[in-house]
């Protein structure tokens, strides 16, 4: 479904992502792990169009997306979250969700003024769907609160909900559990699993290894910009290169 072919990205002298190829088929939940600075987020930025690739191609389905703008990539169903939580602080919780609804006729000026009925109908549908999603992420009671006033954990949930609102085919989550408490982590895991059941593909960067082992069907491991492993989580634990990437090289250690 997502196919990355020989993708490279450098910043000045530093090669952040070095000739990576990988493919995600209908795996369900896929993890991307690696030590700090190994290029995971850079890869995410390239997939979603925020960075241009230096070399290589990225396909989503049959479509070549490595030259597309971020908003176009989002519109074909590949939607991401950010490492730092980014709700829209001065919009209400509900508006945060509504703003993510895809293909809104009401975002065209002509419709706003000349086809108000269509816009209204669409808004009502979106609103209904948004309320369902708020239910799912347990934020129903917060719908008319400024999103910036939500707790950090609630903002995380809102962000996931917002991605969901965009009717994605695949979601890219960048460290969804960073900085939230274990109870909320469980809630998040349940939501993510629920998404998988609906047939949405999940691709996530995560540092919480037990969690990765628990929920991912497949993982990719990156180190210093290179892909050093792909396979199931239990194999990764035994892979010498993965161990080296995380713990350091054994031969030089003493």
């Amino acid at each position, binding site marked *: 479904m997502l196919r990355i072919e020989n993708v490279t990205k450098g910043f000045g002298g530093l090669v952040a992502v070095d000739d990576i190829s990988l493919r995600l088929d209908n795996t369900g939940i896929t993890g991307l792990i690696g030590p700090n600075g190994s290029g995971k987020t850079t890869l995410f930025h390239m997939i979603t169009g925020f960075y241009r690739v230096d070399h290589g191609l990225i396909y989503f389905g049959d479509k070549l997306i490595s030259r597309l703008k971020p908003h176009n990539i989002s519109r074909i169903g590949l939607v991401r979250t950010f490492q730092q939580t980014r709700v829209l602080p001065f919009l209400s919780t509900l508006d945060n969700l509504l703003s993510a609804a895809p293909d809104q006729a009401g975002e065209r000026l002509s419709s706003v003024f000349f086809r108000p009925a269509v816009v209204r109908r669409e808004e009502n549908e979106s609103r209904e769907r948004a309320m369902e999603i708020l239910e799912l992420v347990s934020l129903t009671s917060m719908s008319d609160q400024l999103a910036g006033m939500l707790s950090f954990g609630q903002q995380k949930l809102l962000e996931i909900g917002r991605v969901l609102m965009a009717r994605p085919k695949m979601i890219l989550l960048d460290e969804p559990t960073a*900085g939230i408490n274990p109870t909320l982590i469980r809630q998040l895991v349940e939501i993510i699993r629920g998404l998988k059941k609906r047939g949405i593909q999940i691709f996530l960067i995560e*540092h919480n290894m037990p969690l990765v082992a628990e929920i991912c069907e497949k993982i990719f491991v990156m180190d210093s910009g290179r892909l050093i492993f792909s396979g199931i989580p239990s194999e990764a634990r035994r892979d010498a290169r993965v161990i080296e990437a995380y*713990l350091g090289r054994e031969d030089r250690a003493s």
Partner: protein
Amino acid sequence: MLLEVDQLTAGYGPITILHRVSMGLSDREIVCIIGPNGAGKSTVLRAVSGQITPEGGSVIFDGEEITRDGLSKKTEKGLIFIPQGQNIFPNLTVLENLEIAGSILKDSEKLRRAIASVLEKFPMIMERKNRPARELSGGQRQILALSRILILNPRLALLDEPSLGLAPIVVDLIFQEIGKMNKKGISFLLVEQNARKGLSVSHRGYVLELGKNRLTGTGQELLNNQDVQRLYLGG
């Protein structure tokens, strides 16, 4: 104990990263904090150094409570912090970087001598002393950042990921320098992602996970501990 961290709770704004973390460090000891990403290792250093103010708990340095002291006060007491990544001033010359690093020294003659000895010690930096620091290689930059320890000669240095982004051979060099400085009487609290490397030069280590103490022991004990590996890789 030179440094005692007790039940430290800290974070950024609404987000709490560290939950009641405790650790200690004796005089002339190198202690390494390891743990997976997001464990809160760097946050420990920031809270101890005074870059962020802890929400709870206490930090005792040399028998004196310094929990809420600011960066500069702590620096004067002999506790310095070298952050990760951008830890030099790229548009200042190498020499100027050294001068700024030692700018809290009141005695300018002493500063001059300290800088001279640093330059003598690292010829590769000496060669470029009047060039902007941005022209240095990654390893040279790290050496330049570490020179601050030589200049200020503190009791305790907090180092955040000194090996990040460096070639293995440079990493070895950096750790050698840390060892040498330690022999001269400087204690170190390191954060390392390269766990083997970090632990191998350390007397003791602490393992953090999700902002909490997980394990502690000597470097060798931790290196041989299967739990450490599991922490990093899950399972």
